[in-house]
């Protein structure tokens, strides 16, 4: 049975079972016109091989290390880009969830921050108020204390004054007493001096 062109394709690309492959090989040996056609195809396949193993031209020029890193970078970039591009238009639940979560987190954080700020502001206000009151109280108590002090000082002063006056009075009295005593003693001394002088005069007369 004459093989078809389809059979020859399977033959050339090695897709036939071994016995079928062998049968077609034998057929070629006995049918030169078929062999010529198959050879033509085989030659074209060889030409096609020249384009096999594609390598971008720049790979020949650039040192291998750079190419390695370049390819790695490009791959990473490509994956990132692709995933980014792939996830963007499609409704990606994970990404969406992540986005919503991020948004909610942000929102909650903002609200919390706001509330905290309000609370803090209120507390600061309260603290300030309290502080003001305390200061006022302190001031008042200090004023009171000062008044009390002043009073007590005044009282003490008065007391002191009174005592001083008393002291002065007693001192004066003492001085007066001393003066009187001194005067009387002076008088006594004058008398004694007079007496003594009288004695002296009489004794002198007797001698004469």
């Amino acid at each position, binding site marked *: 049975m004459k093989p078809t062109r389809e059979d020859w394709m399977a033959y050339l690309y090695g897709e036939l079972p071994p016995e079928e492959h062998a049968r077609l090989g034998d057929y070629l040996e006995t049918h030169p016109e078929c062999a010529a056609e198959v050879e033509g195809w085989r030659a074209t*396949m060889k*030409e096609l091989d020249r*384009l096999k193993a594609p390598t*971008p031209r720049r790979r020949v020029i650039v040192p291998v290390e750079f190419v390695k890193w370049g390819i790695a970078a490009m791959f990473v970039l490509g994956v990132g880009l692709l995933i980014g591009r792939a996830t963007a238009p499609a409704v990606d639940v*994970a990404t969406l969830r992540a986005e919503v979560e991020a948004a909610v987190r942000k929102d909650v954080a903002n609200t919390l921050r706001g509330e905290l700020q309000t609370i803090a502001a209120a507390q600061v206000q309260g603290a300030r108020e309290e502080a003001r009151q305390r200061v006022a109280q302190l001031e008042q108590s200090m004023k009171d204390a000062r008044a009390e002090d002043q009073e007590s000082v005044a009282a003490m002063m008065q007391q002191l004054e009174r005592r001083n006056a008393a002291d002065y009075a007693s001192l004066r009295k003492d001085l007066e007493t001393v003066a009187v005593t001194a005067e009387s003693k002076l008088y006594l001394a004058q008398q004694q001096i007079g007496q003594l002088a009288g004695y002296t005069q009489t004794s002198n007369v007797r001698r004469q």
Partner: protein
Amino acid sequence: MNLPFASLFTLTDEQAMARVCQEDDVEAFAELMKRWQTPIRNLCLRMTGDLQRAEDLTQEAFTRLYQYRKNYQPRGKVSTFVWRIALNLCYDEQRRIKRRGESSLDAEQGDNIVMLESASPAEQTEESERAEIVRRALAKLPEIYRTVLVLRHYEDLKFREIADILEIPEGTVKSRMSEALTQLNRILQPMLSESRAERPSSGGNENERASL
């Protein structure tokens, strides 16, 4: 499903995709991307012939894979779904280019050519020239043939898998493949002889042939 992260590597594509669909598992999606990024980029590169465009289309393909994850049939293979998305993007891109009248694949885009890694600079130059010719020839091939050829020859998919991706019978894939090879040879031959004529110093036999 609280499997450890390491188990991601042992997941099949289908298990990873199930995670993506049911749990929007970003790590599973990243793992799928890691596995499929290069094949998809290569497909787009062969289909469009432009590296920059291929990179953009690959990104777009994975974006769509994620967007359309609910459309994925758990009975089908993830790879089929991914290939299909990427191919449709390539078709759309080709149509857009044609509508705008922009230079398409067959343009002389020296900067984005792909080539083989070869030993000496001289070999490299010759190889890259031949590769460029193949690229241009491939670009001239009608889209339905180019698709089959790229998937079978370069991406090494079985004819059965290609049939599943394109939703056509396997026999049709094979006949398209033979037609693709025949047409490509027809496009390639004049280009190769033209190139030999332009490079008389490249070899004795070729030199003789060119001068005849």
